[in-house]
C-alpha cells in the first residue's frame, strides 16, 4: 500500500525531470527543476536517507536554486510577456530547423532507449551485495560519534570529505577564474526594502541557530558540517540580498582565511596525528568526538564562506561587463 507513495513520487520525479528539460521557456525549466529537487528530497526521506534529504534540500534545491535564479536575470530577455510573440516566432523557426535534425534526433532517442533498457535490466538484476552496514556497525563505537553517516563522513572516509571541502573551494576558485575576484569590491546599489530588511534580520539568527543545531546534532543524528555550512552560507546570501555584502566589509586576508580555514585545519590536524601515528587523519579514539566536532565547525564555516563567495562573485560579475564589451 505504501508503495503507492513511492510510485507516485517516482512518476512525479521523472515527469519533472523530463519537463524541466523539454520546457520551452527557461524560467519554466528552472522552476520545474526546483520542484524536481523537492521531489528528490522526498524520495530521500522515503528511502530513510535523512542526511541526504537535508543536504539535497539545502544545497541542491536551496543554494543551487538561488544561483539559477540569479542566472535567470542574465538569460531571460525573451521571457517577459511583451516578448512572447518573439518566442513564438523563434519556436516556428526552430521547428523549421528541427526538420533537418530529425535523423540525429531519432538516432539519439533510439540510442538512449536502448541504453535505458540495458540500464533497467542492470539495476533490476543487481545481485545481493551485502553493503558495509555490518562493518560500520562494529566500528561505530571507535569512531567517536554515534551517527553512522557522520562517522563515515568525518572518520572512516575523512579523506573523501576533506577533498570535498577542497572541491567547494575549487568551485569558488573556478568562479573567480571566470569572472575575476569581485567579492571584495563594494557593489553599486543596495536594496532598500523595509520589509525585506525585517525578514532578513529575523531569519539571520534563525538560520544561524538552526545551522548550529544541525552541526551539533550531527554527532548523533542526521545533520553535520555540510548542512550547517549551507545554512550559514544562506545567511551570507541573505545579507547580500539585503544590501550587506559581507565580503566587502572584511579585508582580503580575512576572507581568504575563512575560505581556507576548514581545508587547512583539517589537513594540518591530519598531519599532526600522522606524525604521532602512521596515517593521515588517524585520530586517537578518545579525542575523536571532540576533534570531529572542531573539524566540522571549521569546515562548516569554510563551506559557508565559500558558498557565500560563489554567490556574491556570480552576482557581482556583471559589473565588469561594459569594460569587456568595449574590448570586444
Amino acid at each position, binding site marked *: 500500500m505504501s508503495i503507492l507513495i513511492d510510485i507516485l513520487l517516482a512518476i512525479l520525479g521523472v515527469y519533472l525531470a523530463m519537463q524541466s528539460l523539454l520546457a520551452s521557456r527557461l524560467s519554466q525549466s528552472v522552476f520545474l527543476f526546483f520542484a524536481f529537487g523537492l521531489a528528490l528530497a522526498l524520495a530521500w526521506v522515503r528511502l530513510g536517507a535523512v542526511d541526504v534529504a537535508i543536504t539535497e534540500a539545502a544545497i541542491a534545491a536551496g543554494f543551487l536554486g538561488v544561483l539559477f535564479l540569479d542566472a535567470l536575470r542574465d538569460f531571460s530577455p525573451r521571457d517577459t*510577456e*511583451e516578448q512572447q510573440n518573439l518566442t513564438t516566432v523563434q519556436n516556428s523557426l526552430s521547428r523549421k530547423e528541427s526538420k533537418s535534425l530529425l535523423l540525429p534526433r531519432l538516432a539519439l532517442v533510439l540510442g538512449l532507449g536502448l541504453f535505458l533498457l540495458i540500464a533497467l535490466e542492470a539495476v533490476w538484476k543487481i545481485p545481493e551485495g551485502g553493503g558495509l552496514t555490518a562493518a560500520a556497525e562494529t566500528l561505530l563505537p571507535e569512531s567517536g560519534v554515534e551517527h553512522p553517516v557522520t562517522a563515515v563522513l568525518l572518520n572512516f572516509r575523512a579523506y573523501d570529505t576533506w577533498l570535498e571541502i577542497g572541491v567547494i573551494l575549487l568551485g569558488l576558485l573556478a568562479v573567480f577564474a571566470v569572472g575575476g575576484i569581485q567579492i571584495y569590491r563594494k557593489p553599486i546599489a543596495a536594496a532598500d526594502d523595509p*520589509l*525585506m530588511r525585517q*525578514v532578513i534580520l*529575523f531569519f539571520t539568527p*534563525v538560520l544561524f541557530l538552526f545551522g548550529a543545531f544541525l552541526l551539533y546534532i550531527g554527532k548523533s543524528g542526521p545533520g553535520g558540517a555540510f548542512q550547517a555550512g549551507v545554512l550559514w552560507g544562506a545567511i551570507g546570501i541573505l545579507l547580500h540580498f539585503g544590501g550587506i555584502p559581507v565580503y566587502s566589509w572584511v579585508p582580503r586576508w580575512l576572507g581568504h582565511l575563512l575560505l581556507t580555514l576548514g581545508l587547512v585545519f583539517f589537513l594540518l590536524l591530519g598531519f599532526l596525528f600522522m606524525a604521532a601515528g602512521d596515517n593521515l587523519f588517524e585520530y586517537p579514539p578518545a579525542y575523536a568526538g571532540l576533534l570531529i566536532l572542531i573539524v566540522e565547525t571549521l569546515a562548516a564555516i569554510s563551506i559557508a564562506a565559500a558558498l557565500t563567495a560563489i554567490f556574491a562573485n556570480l552576482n557581482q560579475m556583471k559589473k565588469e561587463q561594459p569594460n569587456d564589451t568595449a574590448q570586444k
Partner: protein
Amino acid sequence: MMIKEVIAIILLVVGCFFFLAGTIGVLRFPDLFSRLHALTKADNLGLGFIAAGMAVYIASPLAALKIFFIWLFTLLASSTSCYLIARFQKEQEQSKNRKEQG
C-alpha cells in the same frame, strides 16, 4: 483506536481539505492576486491543521515545539513571499503601464 488517533485523523482530513481548496484556487482563479490569496490562506491553514494533527499524534513536547516552529516559519515565509510576489507583480504592471503611456 485511541482517542488521539481519532483527533489526528480529523485534523488531517480538515487539513487536506484546505490544501485541496488552495490548489483548486490556484488552478481556477482568474488573476494572480486572487490565486495568491487562495494559496496563501488555504495552504497555511491546511498546514496548520496537519501540523496540529501530527503534534497530537506524536505526542512529544519537543516534537510539538518543533512542529509549532515549522508552522510558524511557514507562515512567516509564505506571508512574506506572498507580499513580495504581490508587490513585484504590482510594480511590474505599473512599469508596464508607464511604458504604454509614455
